[in-house]
């Protein structure tokens, strides 16, 4: 193990318990990580995103851990937000969540809240007031938020686990390593797209393919594409689900790609990946098991205001059929904006619903009677069968097609 990690006097004091038991435990984890990763020092952060919030995914172990941290008086030193919970924190009954689940879920959120990690419960903190600046070093978990912050915003985060993001929030520091360093942010793999990308789901399929085929320390470089940030949100989330892509560049589009003279390490790509019609077909086949669904689920990652507007436009003049639920998932912040725009009312009037704080991946679908979902998110289509022991089928298609399925 490298002993090159230098700590300041203040950091030594935290490690030795001078700032409390929990801070010492958190510092111990960061120091161990820093030593293994051969970091030279720790660097300060002002923003955190902490995963491990849904009771379904984090369970009793994390609940008890965070409650014990709270009872020992731990406090976050950063602007820190919680990842999605397993339910809408207010309207959970309307989702068909049990009292038992709700009680545990509330305890987790309250425990995080008590240590200063806010119950915003979204995977899109960058749309909700915790948007990092270009070049800013942050300590995020939530794989999709890491990919978005690094790639679309040009901020700098490693792919922290829920626990090390929590530790980093409590200490206000992260080890200086990995994607925080210039030399690791250059491209490795050139992606060539040899098929048409039409809907946003196609961009997710592309991300899914790339994530499967690159290693966690390789940076893929996509060709110049005419994409919105919303499509990149879906693409990055997919490549951080099938794989571990923390950072990608899109030529002439994402901020670092437009600033860097040479996009690749050693001046040229180590490998080229080709995404063609056949590869696209394979992804859709892998992520779709049946088009029989009783839930159309949109909002993984949480919908932006524009994505909610697209739902409203797509559903106009139609009504959700009796066999299907159409649910949109978003953050409380975007929900408020959508409400002011009249979108929530319109979606509800068409028989759909909009929930906050949660999504189809981290809600307990099995106990909610969901047996099949249709979604435009490759990330969700990857996780849902795994999270439900295959009791829930998936269908990956465009937002427009998904809405049609629910309204035909």
């Amino acid at each position, binding site marked *: 193990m490298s002993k090159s990690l230098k700590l300041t006097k203040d950091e030594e004091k935290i490690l030795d318990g001078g700032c409390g038991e929990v801070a010492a435990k958190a510092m111990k*984890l960061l120091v161990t990580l820093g030593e293994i990763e051969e970091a030279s020092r720790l660097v300060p952060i002002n923003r955190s995103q902490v995963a491990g919030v849904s009771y379904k*995914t984090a369970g009793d172990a994390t609940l008890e851990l965070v409650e014990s941290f709270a009872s020992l008086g731990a406090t976050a030193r950063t602007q820190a937000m919680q990842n999605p919970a397993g339910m809408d924190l207010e309207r959970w009954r309307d989702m068909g969540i049990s009292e038992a689940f709700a009680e545990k879920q509330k305890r987790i959120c309250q425990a995080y809240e008590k240590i200063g990690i806010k119950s915003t419960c979204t995977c899109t903190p960058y749309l909700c007031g915790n948007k990092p600046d270009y070049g800013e070093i942050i300590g995020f978990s939530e794989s999709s938020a890491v990919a978005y912050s690094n790639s679309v915003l040009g901020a700098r985060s490693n792919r922290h686990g829920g*626990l*090390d993001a929590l530790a980093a929030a409590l200490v206000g520091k992260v080890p200086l390593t990995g994607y925080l360093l210039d030399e690791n942010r250059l491209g490795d793999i050139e992606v060539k797209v040899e098929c048409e990308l039409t809907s946003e789901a196609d961009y997710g399929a592309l991300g899914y393919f790339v994530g499967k085929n690159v*290693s966690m320390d390789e940076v893929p470089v996509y060709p110049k594409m005419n994409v919105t940030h919303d499509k990149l949100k879906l693409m990055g989330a997919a490549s951080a689900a099938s794989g571990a892509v923390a950072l990608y560049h899109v030529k002439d589009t994402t901020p670092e790609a437009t600033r860097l003279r040479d996009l690749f390490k050693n001046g040229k790509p180590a490998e080229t990946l080709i995404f063609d019609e056949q590869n696209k077909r394979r992804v859709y086949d892998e992520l779709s098991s049946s088009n029989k669904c009783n839930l159309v689920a949109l909002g993984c990652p949480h919908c932006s205001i524009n994505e909610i507007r697209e739902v409203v436009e797509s559903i106009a003049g139609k009504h959700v059929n009796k066999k299907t639920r159409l649910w949109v998932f978003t953050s409380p912040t975007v929900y408020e904006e959508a409400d002011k725009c009249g979108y929530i009312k319109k979606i509800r009037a068409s028989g759909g619903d909009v929930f906050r704080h949660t999504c189809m991946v981290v809600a307990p679908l099995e106990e909610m009677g969901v047996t099949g979902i249709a979604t435009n998110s490759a990330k969700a289509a990857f996780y849902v069968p795994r999270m439900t022991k295959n009791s829930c089928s998936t269908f990956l298609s465009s937002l427009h097609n998904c809405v049609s399925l629910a309204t035909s």
Partner: protein
Amino acid sequence: MIFKAKIVQPWLNDIIGEVLITRSKISFLGDVDAKTGELVGADLDIKGRNLTDKILIFPEGRGSTVGSNVLYGLARNGLAPKLIGTSKIESITISGAIFGGIPMVSSIDEAVFDEIRNGDILRANIQGSCAILEKLEKSKYFKKPQST
């Protein structure tokens, strides 16, 4: 046959255990049933096997950052692997292993993926600043039933 690795979470006594090995990337969220330790990811070649008490070796993680919390939960519920070995250094797995007290190594010799199969027996011990994994003959590990 020995394989060197970097120590992530040290242990005291030699660890001897049956190997569960894959070249696939693993997400502890989704690919592993947190209540049983069973591998459930549809595209995994070790699907259907259980990681509890095994020496689990895989190249790198994928997917969810909640993986660290799931791994910690497996440890708290007595379902953790005996030892985790990875090729890449990745904080999601490492922080779960550290909080969960699961012995772990990383940067493991790549040859392990060619030479070691599921069900093989490895002994892991610490020699200086390095971890050494050694393949044991199964016949030496499984004591033959005494003939009467």
